[in-house]
């Protein structure tokens, strides 16, 4: 399968390990990623709060380039995905909007190239028996709380998974031998939009609830599909711990990192050493089990 690849701004900086791991596992899984040349920022999460048209036009340019190449777009970042999807839907719903957008971006975009979440694409690519041969390490011992975040499966009308209790990431991880916990914060917002902007005090109490819920559910790590969530859960975890004088010690992974680990890719190539909450002890634990439980 070939996709146009839209990494988005975060994946070249704060979310670099998401980018690294995505490219690595794509190679192994036989997914060809063609990075959209000269892609631009999709505007998330500022444009849609400033001007409706700008918010639709910015992602449209990227989609237009992909459409020219005849490809659907694979988007790892949940926020970029949500904004791009909104554009795709708007163009398909209204001829008038399609015309306006084409005039604004001065390119042709007919709404044929679809914005697709990386999680969905990876989930599809591992269906079938062939995947069994590719698994090097079973992720036994991982008890993951899958955190989908708010933007990946909303709005409900266009979502690829259930907005209240999504399962795609859980199923993906089960396939690679990890356990996932049943918890009710899968799609609760982490407040990332406030974290990155200017309201840290709002974020802290939201984050606290998520950490407690994951702990109570018996998880030993969090898994996410969004660089904003990652930043928030990983970078700010220590801050939240300090604020409430407690310890959560919950490493946070991108789902792509765990898939990469299971596929036998070296942890440093996946960027697993770049986390704020040290993920390596848990990774090491999994790797040490390798001897007994190699797939």
């Amino acid at each position: 399968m070939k996709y146009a690849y839209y990494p988005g701004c975060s994946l070249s900086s704060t979310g670099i390990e998401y980018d690294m791991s995505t490219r690595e596992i794509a190679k192994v899984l036989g997914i060809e990623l063609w990075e959209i040349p000269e892609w631009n920022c999709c505007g998330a999460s500022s444009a849609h709060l400033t001007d409706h048209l700008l918010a639709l036009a910015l992602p449209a340019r990227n989609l237009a380039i992909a459409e020219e190449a005849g490809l659907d777009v694979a988007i790892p970042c949940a926020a970029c995905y949500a904004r791009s999807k909104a554009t795709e839907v708007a163009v398909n719903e209204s001829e008038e909007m399609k015309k306006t957008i084409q005039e604004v971006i001065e390119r042709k975009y007919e709404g044929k190239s679809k914005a697709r979440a990386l999680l969905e694409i990876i989930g599809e690519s591992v269906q079938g028996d062939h995947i069994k041969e590719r698994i090097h390490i079973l992720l036994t011992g991982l008890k993951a709380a899958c955190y989908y975040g708010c933007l990946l499966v909303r709005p409900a009308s266009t979502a690829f998974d259930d907005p209240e209790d999504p399962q795609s990431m859980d199923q993906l991880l089960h396939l690679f031998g990890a356990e996932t916990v049943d918890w009710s914060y899968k799609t609760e917002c982490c407040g990332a939009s406030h974290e990155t902007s200017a309201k840290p005090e709002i974020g802290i109490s939201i984050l606290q609830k998520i950490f407690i819920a994951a702990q109570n559910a018996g998880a030993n790590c969090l898994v996410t599909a969004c660089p904003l969530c990652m930043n928030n859960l990983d970078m700010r975890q220590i801050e939240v711990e300090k604020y409430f004088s407690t310890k959560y010690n919950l490493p946070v992974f991108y789902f792509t990192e765990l898939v990469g680990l299971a596929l036998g890719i070296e942890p440093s190539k996946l960027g697993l050493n770049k986390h704020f909450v040290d993920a390596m002890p848990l990774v090491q634990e999994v790797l040490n089990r390798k001897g007994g439980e190699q797939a």
Partner: protein
Amino acid sequence: MKRVGVFVCHCGTNISGTVDCAQVAEAAKDFPNVEYSIDYKYMCSEPGQEMIKKAIEEHKLNRIVVASCSPRMHEPTFQNCVERAGLNPYYVEMANIREHCSWVHPNEKEGATEKAIDLVRMAVAKAVRNQPLQKTTIPVTDRALVIGGGIAGIQAALDLANAGHVVDIVEREPSIGGKMAQIDKTFPTLDCSACILTPKMVDAAAHPNINLLTYSEIEKVDGFVGNFDVTIRQKARSIKMDVCTGCGICMEKCPVKVDSEFELGLAKRRAIYTPFPQAIPNKPVIDREHCTYFLRGKCGICSKLCPAGAVDYTQQDELLTRRYGAIIVATGFELFDYSVYGEYGYGKYPDVITGLQFERLINASGPTMGKLQRPSDKKEPKNIVIINCVGSRDEAKGKSYCSRTCCMYSAKHASLIRDKIKDSNVYVFYMDMRTPGKGYEEFYDRSREQYGTQYIRGRVSKIYPLNDKLIVRGEDTLLSQPVEVEADLVILATAMVAQPDADKLAQKIGIGYDKDNFYTEAHPKLAPVETHTQGVYLAGACQGPKDIPDSVAQASAAAAKACGLLSKPEILTEPIVTEVDEKTCAGCGTCLLICPYKAIDLKTLTERIAGEIVERKVATVNEGLCQGCGACTVACRSGSIYLKHYTDEQILAEVNALCL
């Protein structure tokens, strides 16, 4: 010779204020066949009707046109009037110059008068072509069918039986009783539900005029008012009903345990079972889907143990066809499946239960013997949340309507909980409290004042487990603040919905249903228990959400309507039906496919043509079934089927008259 009389009504000033009635009457004099024309202040009044009768005699009129209000208002009045003057009532034709003219064109006097003249001309043209029609009679079978053995069905059957009519109750479960049998107490009196229901069940079973057909379903309904031929499937019970004594040994010894439908999954039953101890008939049935004997051909314990030898594994479903004069549909409701709500845990949290499950939990004969304990760990709950409108008033995931009963039963649940557990706290999340019933508001007051129930106005957004609690998040909209309750048990007041197969039964009987599959009444105000199919009546929640008092009242109303039908040996039928011109009918059968009432059939004619005897098929109309819609007349390629009183000739005459 057609002699038409035209009578133009002023309706006080209702018509004459806009339409120049004298001018209309004058213009009518020039219409073909009009012999007499006059205007008058109130045609429907006694002197007005006298005037018509007199004119008929004096001018030998044989067609009457009344230009006045809507025929939906006074057509029967004028039909009776001419009938008294010795004319066929179908010789009357009306021109609606009030609702369709003077009232809608008050500022266009000229236009309105011109229009009134047109309308009278059309009516005259049609009246001239009106044929005398006779109402015919059809016999009525004095036997009623009640479908559904819940409280509505039982009540309707008892009323009919007491009036001297034979009634069959068809109930698909092994016992009659319905949902009311599962309920613990009833609002607003807190009567024990079983204490008031079971005597009625016994009465129904013992009544000489009532036959119970339990574990049976409707297979097919043919026929028409007074003469419905209904095929009933009596499912194989695997028990010889006439031999079984109901001792219950079989049920004690059966090794199979499955979730009890009656206890809503809160307890187990055996594969041979009665749904509940007071079941009527109190004789078991074998659930063949789960019985080891039927699954693997082994076991047979019940058969070995039965002292009466009543177990019969070889029984087959039996089909029974009977003729009924009237049908009362009382199939009740189901509960909304709340597992569509991800925010309420998709039905995965054991301590989130429905209101009906709560009824079983608090019931002295229920799975916990009336001890209120939560399903997960059998602990006594201290903080209980009740959520109203789950599935009701929710266009997104549920039903748009209000289920009418939940506000009240939630208030009842709150009171019952506090009765049982004195130190408990009950929170009810509601959106609007709806208590329009006798004693209902007072009952709600008591639940707050006497039982200390905390009412919070707001819809719950999410329930999630935290340790062994359930966190319930809502907004107190009166406080404008989000609130959380750490609950031990959550009770959902789930919506009342139509039976899952309500539409299929409706299609079998030939009655209408709405977007939510509730059966539609003939008129929401004036014919609330009738259906559009004559002789079929509605009782209880199959027509829409209802509480017990309303269901019982409607059941008695339906029974009264059915009595009215059954107490006469025959009934008159509307003569506006279709008729086939057998000379030209080609017997193609297109009309059979079009007719929504299955009123048309093919019959074989034997004719002598050029000395030879030939057989050919022609369509024939069953006048008892035909409702006079006329759909077939348009579909007929040779124009061989026509609707009386609305023939092509009559309608075309009106069209022609309009354009003169």
